[in-house]
Structures are given as C-alpha cells and as structure tokens.
C-alpha cells in the first residue's frame, strides 16, 4: 500500500443544495469547515460519508476513490471506512454503550469485538459505563461513546459534525482537550464542522470558510482571520471593521496609501494595485490601539482616528467598544480592549477617544 495521502474533496452542483467546495485534509491534520447555518457544512460531510450524492465531483481517500461523478463511482456509506460523529450523536437508543461500539465492528471476528470495544471505551474515559444505555449517559458521555463508535470501524477519515454543540461549556473544554489528544494518537485526516470560529481556531490546523456551499477561503486560522480574501470572508469570520477605500499613492517603504472617506491612511501592504483602484480594507480588533491620556502610546503616530464612544459592553475581562469617527460618523469602528484599560482611560459612552489603526494590521481586499 502506498503512503496515505489523506482526503481530497471536490463537490459541485447548482441544485437542490448549491455546492462548490474543494479542499483536502492530510493524515494527522484537523480541517474545520466553518460557516453560518445553512452554508452546506453538513451536506459536505454527508457527501464524504456517502449518505448524500452530489451531482458532480470526487471524493478520494489515500488514493482510493469513494465518489467520482465522471466515472460514475459512488460507494454506499457502509463500504466507506468513515468514522462519523453526528451532531446529536445518533447513538442507537436500544443498545448499551458497549453494543453501540460493537455495532461498528463487523470487520472483526466475532470473538474479538467485545475486547476491542471495551478498549475503545477505556480510551475515551468511559470505563465502567459499558452497560449503560444512551439515555442513562450525560451529554459529554454520549459524545465519547459516539467518538468510540466512530473509531471502532478503523476509519480512514474521521468526520465530526458540530460535536460540541450539545454539551455545556465546562464539558466542552474537557472534550476539546480529549480531541486534541486523540488526534495526536490517530494520524487520520479529521474534518470538523462547526459554526463556532473560536472552537475552529483552537482545534484546527486549517479552516475552510463556507458560504452557500462554496469554499471561499482555505488557510490557517491566523491567515483566515487576519487576511481574508474577500469582504464576504471577513464578515463570516466576524471581522466587523470592513470599509471601502481608494488607493491614492505608494509610500517609500513600499506600502500603499489609501483614502478612507476623506482620511489618508498608511498601510504596509505592497500591492501592485494601480492608483485610483477601489478596495476594501479590514482591521482585526487587536490592531486598534487606544491612545492613553497620560502619556504617548505605542504606534500613536500610525493612522490616528478620533471620535466619540457610542457604546461599551463589558464581557468578562474585555470591553467591546463602538466609536463614531469624527471624519465620518456613518462608519462605526469596533474594537475591544481589556476592561482595566477602558477604566483607566475613562472610556464610556459619549467620551472622546483617539485610536491608532496600526498599519501592519490593515489588510486590503478587492472591493465587493
């Protein structure tokens, strides 16, 4: 057998569910499909598993073709070695935890199944609960049975459909750590579907941002969340500071200068965009720096913008602020600072504030 090459997926159709998805996932890699509800994430997962057959495309795993519309190949799900963890786990309610796991072991001789199933349940920390039915297990325990059952088939790819959505926050944190451990032990391609960007960024090596069944961008969490390819991606990854501008010049250092609603801004992006090009720009929260009142702050000379605080919402130890810049009050700027910074600077609704938009954080995209 050749070395595992991982999972390659390419799906296309116009109806009934539009799909234009293309991605790959290497052995040992976690790829997160992120996007709002209805963006086709689950349909893509079901297409990999074989439960859904799209009009066009191909699914291949380690060189083996599971689906290829050109060659009219479509293996049914029971002939694809997938491990699938369903959103609500889809455990068989009439079977015990042990029997649930053993159900996925038809490939093993009958005599070996029970020992192997017990071993898997131990691995997901469920030793002692083998004889319980799903209804007698907590949400987190059910999720672990689902993971053990998914692994029982010796899958070539592990598919996780919103696996953390049905458990409380504390359990979720514990399950995150367990998934991270598992993935080191398994060396399988793992495709995780989630609408929670933080979860995706924490667990995944790469994200594929989906909208209406289309993969808009694939990249590391850092790439996708700071350098989105389009304003649409920026919105989908919760970047709220997306604005229109025009390229007006080039700095000596290389970055272009843009005009944002009458205000001149410096960037470090050395694009080849000709002067006069309409662009969109985006700045992640972390690159908006509040000027201190008592002494100069870091990067104070970079793109200073003054305005009035419109609203401030504290969430835990962070303050989420919205300000209306004086040069154009129609363009609200959003940023967050640690709560103690907000207090020290007396930030509150109606208060004057000046911030710097750090040039290195400004990212340019083609205009929408």
């Amino acid at each position: 057998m050749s070395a595992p090459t991982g999972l390659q997926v390419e799906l296309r159709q116009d109806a009934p569910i539009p799909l234009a998805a293309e991605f790959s996932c290497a052995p040992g890699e976690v790829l997160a499909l992120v996007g709002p509800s209805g963006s086709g994430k689950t349909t893509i997962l079901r297409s990999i598993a074989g439960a859904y057959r799209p009009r066009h495309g191909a699914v291949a795993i380690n060189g083996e073709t599971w689906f290829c519309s050109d060659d009219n190949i479509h293996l049914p799900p029971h002939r694809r070695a997938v491990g699938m963890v369903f959103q609500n786990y889809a455990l068989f309610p009439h079977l015990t935890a042990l029997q649930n796991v053993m159900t996925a072991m038809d490939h093993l001789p009958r005599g070996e199944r029970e020992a192997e199933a017990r071993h898997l349940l131990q691995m997901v920390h469920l030793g002692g609960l083998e004889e319980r039915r799903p209804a007698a297990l907590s949400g987190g325990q059910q999720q672990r049975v689902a993971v053990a059952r998914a692994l029982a088939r010796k899958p070539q790819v592990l598919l996780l459909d919103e696996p953390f959505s049905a458990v409380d926050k504390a359990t979720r944190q514990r399950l995150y750590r367990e998934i991270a451990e598992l993935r080191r032990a398994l060396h399988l391609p793992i495709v995780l579907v989630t609408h929670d960007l933080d979860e995706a960024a924490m667990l995944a090596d790469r994200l594929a941002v989906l909208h209406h069944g289309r993969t808009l961008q694939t990249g590391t969490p850092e790439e996708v969340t700071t350098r989105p390819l389009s304003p649409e991606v920026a919105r989908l990854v919760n970047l709220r500071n997306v604005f229109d501008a025009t390229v007006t010049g080039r700095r000596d250092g290389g970055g272009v200068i843009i005009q944002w609603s009458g205000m001149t801004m410096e960037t470090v992006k050395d694009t080849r965009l000709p002067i006069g090009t309409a662009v969109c720009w985006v700045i992640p929260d972390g690159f908006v720096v509040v000027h201190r009142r008592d002494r100069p702050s870091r990067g104070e000379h970079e793109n200073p913008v003054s305005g009035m605080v419109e609203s401030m919402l504290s969430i835990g130890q962070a303050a989420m602020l919205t300000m209306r810049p004086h040069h154009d009050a129609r363009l609200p700027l959003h940023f967050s600072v640690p709560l103690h910074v907000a207090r020290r600077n007396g930030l509150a609704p109606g208060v004057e504030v000046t911030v710097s938009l750090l040039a290195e954080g400004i990212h340019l995209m083609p205009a929408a």
Partner: protein
Amino acid sequence: MDWTALIISLRLAVFTVLILLPIGIVTGRVLAYRNFPGKGMVEALVALPLVLPPTVFGYYLLVAFGAASPIGQLWQATFGHQLVFTFEGLLLASIIFNLPFAIQPMERGFEAIAPEIREAAACCGLTPWRALLKIELPLALPSILTAMVLSFAHTLGEFGIVLMVGGSIPGETRTIAIAIYDRVQAFDEAGAAQMSALLLAISLITIALVFIFSRRGDRWPK
C-alpha cells in the same frame, strides 16, 4: 358456544397476521422512507378499508373474487375450486381489509426512527440488510407489535365483509362474529352472550397490549 366458529376465527386471525407481517414491514418502510410519484394514491388505497362501509367493500371483493372475474377464474383453474365462500377467499379478503391496520402503525414506527440513526448505522459499516435487522426492526418493534395486535383483533371482530365474501358456511367460513349473529337470530340469548363476552375480553386485552407496546416505544428517547 360455537367452538368451531371460534377456531375458524382464530385460524383466520393468525394466518392474516403472519402474512401481513412481512407485507406491512416492507410497505410501511417504503412509505416511511421513500418518495415516489403516486405515493399519496398508494397511501389512500391502503387507508380505504378504514372509511368504506364493510358491505360495500365486501361487495367489491365478492365481485373481484367471483367465478366471472379473472382472479376467480385463475383460482378455479389452479386449485380446482372457487375462491368465494371458502376459507382461502376469506383469508385473502381479511388480508386486504387489514392492510391499514398493519401498514399504518408500522409506517409510523419506521418514520419515528431519526434519519441520522439510519445514517449512523450505514456509517458503522452495516449493510442495509444488517441495519434493518440490528437497528430498524428493534426500534420499530413496539409499532410492529401494535400493528399485529390490531390486525388480529380486527379480524376476530369483522362481520360485514366476512358475510359477503365467505357466507356463513359452518366449519369453513362461519366465524365467531357471524355465529353470534346466528345465535341472536335463533333466540339463543345464552350462546350469544357467552361468545360476545369472549370477544369483549379479547378486545379489551388487545387494547391494553397496544397501550403497553406504545409506552415501551417511549422508553428510548429519540
């Protein structure tokens, strides 16, 4: 007490249930999971015996099974005797008029299995046949038992259709429901009362069983 009539009724009910079991599982499952053109028509046909007066239904079956009909002639040619006014004819009629009692509960039972449970079975590597045996049938079991009990009880109690298709031939087609009517006509109050009490008891037990099975169905949260 007309023991012969009781035995004919029980035989009819047992055969009806046994033959309807596979028919109900296959049809109920197809109706629950598949969409096809004319599905509404098929469901309407299955439900028809529920609303049609038994005499009307019995009349059409009599015509359809009669010596002049293709079915009747085929039967005559194959087995050398006519289909109407025989136990076989009665059994065929009984299967047809019990279709809704067998198929509808089973259809509901298969429908109640969440689609992702069936997908999970396939993703566990179970072939469709193994998935049916290990996952679907056990989960639909309370509904299947309900369907069997309802068909059984309904066969014991059916009167109009039995009279139309089977007549009232002692030892062949006279069921207990018809025997009760005959007893009343003959002013045998005691005989009618005994047999009626027996049917009442059977019906009560049946309904109790149906409730017990449907409660079992709730034991596994969906």
